[in-house]
């Protein structure tokens, strides 16, 4: 069934259609929230809030527009707003929680350890980026969306998106480089 038909049925009150919508998007939204927030429990709460917001806003959806892009924009807005509201209450996260580490690959112990260390460094570095830049980097480099898709979700011109991603990547690379230099000195 096409996504617009599912949305129409949801608006008519069909619980089956709502289940289809949840099945189609819950994993993507949950992972996006997890990559942005860094905590499993927080990502679960954020996903629930986002779907609640979606349910309340479905009547405002313009059927001429792309539903996925519209829903990702709504999610992005919620995640950034939530971050702005709570950033003073949180300490900076510098380690991935156990859910991420549990899903590590089956590489040999040494390679696995190096990879794990490297990913931890990237994660903490990602958290140090400003929220808008972090979101563009997540959409492009973690979720693998095209520049055009990122621009639509972020509601920004293509040039601004490219420059934000460029800045974000450079910042991450500089942090990694500094860390490597410190390790080499030790």
């Amino acid at each position, binding site marked *: 069934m096409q996504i617009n038909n599912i949305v129409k049925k949801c608006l008519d009150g069909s*619980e089956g259609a709502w289940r289809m919508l*949840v099945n189609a998007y819950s994993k993507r939204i949950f*992972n996006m929230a997890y990559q942005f927030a860094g905590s499993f429990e927080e990502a679960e709460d954020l996903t629930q809030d986002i779907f609640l917001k979606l349910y309340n806003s479905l009547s405002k959806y313009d059927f001429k527009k792309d539903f996925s892009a519209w829903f990702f924009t709504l999610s992005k807005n919620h995640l950034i707003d939530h971050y702005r509201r709570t950033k003073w209450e949180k300490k900076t996260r510098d380690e991935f929680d156990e859910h*991420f580490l549990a899903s590590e690959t089956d590489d040999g112990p040494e390679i696995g350890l190096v990879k794990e260390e490297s990913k931890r460094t990237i994660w903490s570095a990602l958290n140090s980026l400003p929220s808008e830049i972090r979101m563009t980097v997540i959409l492009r480099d973690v979720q693998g969306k095209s520049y055009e898709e990122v621009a639509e979700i972020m509601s920004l011109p293509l040039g601004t998106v490219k420059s934000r991603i460029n800045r974000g990547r*450079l910042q991450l690379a500089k942090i990694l480089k500094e860390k490597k230099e410190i390790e080499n000195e030790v």
Partner: protein
Amino acid sequence: MKCEKIQELLSPYLEGELNPEEKRLIQEHLEACKECLILFSSLSEAQRSLSDFPQLEVSESLLNRLYSIPAKKKRFRLSFDFLLRPSLQPVLAAATIFLTLISFYAFNPNRKAIDKSIDRQLHLGLNKVEKLYAKAETFTSSLGEYKDNILVSLKNMKIFGGTKE
């Protein structure tokens, strides 16, 4: 080209977005500058690690919470629907005004002064009513004295069938 300018172009270089001339300039610079080469290797390592992020599965409990959103909203809507009836609107408006006045009185720091002024106004009103009542009593008693004369005069009026004299 300076290192800063080169560093700005490293990300587009990694994505293969540069023209052949720019590409050649970057390659030449990376061969000559160790700092920029290390930064470029960190950049590609960071990008690889980001794309390697594992996709987590959604837990059963979260899925159930998401499925139940319409049912919860429906229950909420049913339980509070009666408050939205148009016939209740004047009652709700009156209740709002009443509660506003009560809260204004209850949380006012000069509550004693308000009590005093209400007390004074009540007493003044009571005094006025008493005075009016007393006046009304004297008026009825004075009317009683002239009651007979008034009745005769009325009967003698032309419109009631009497003579003018």
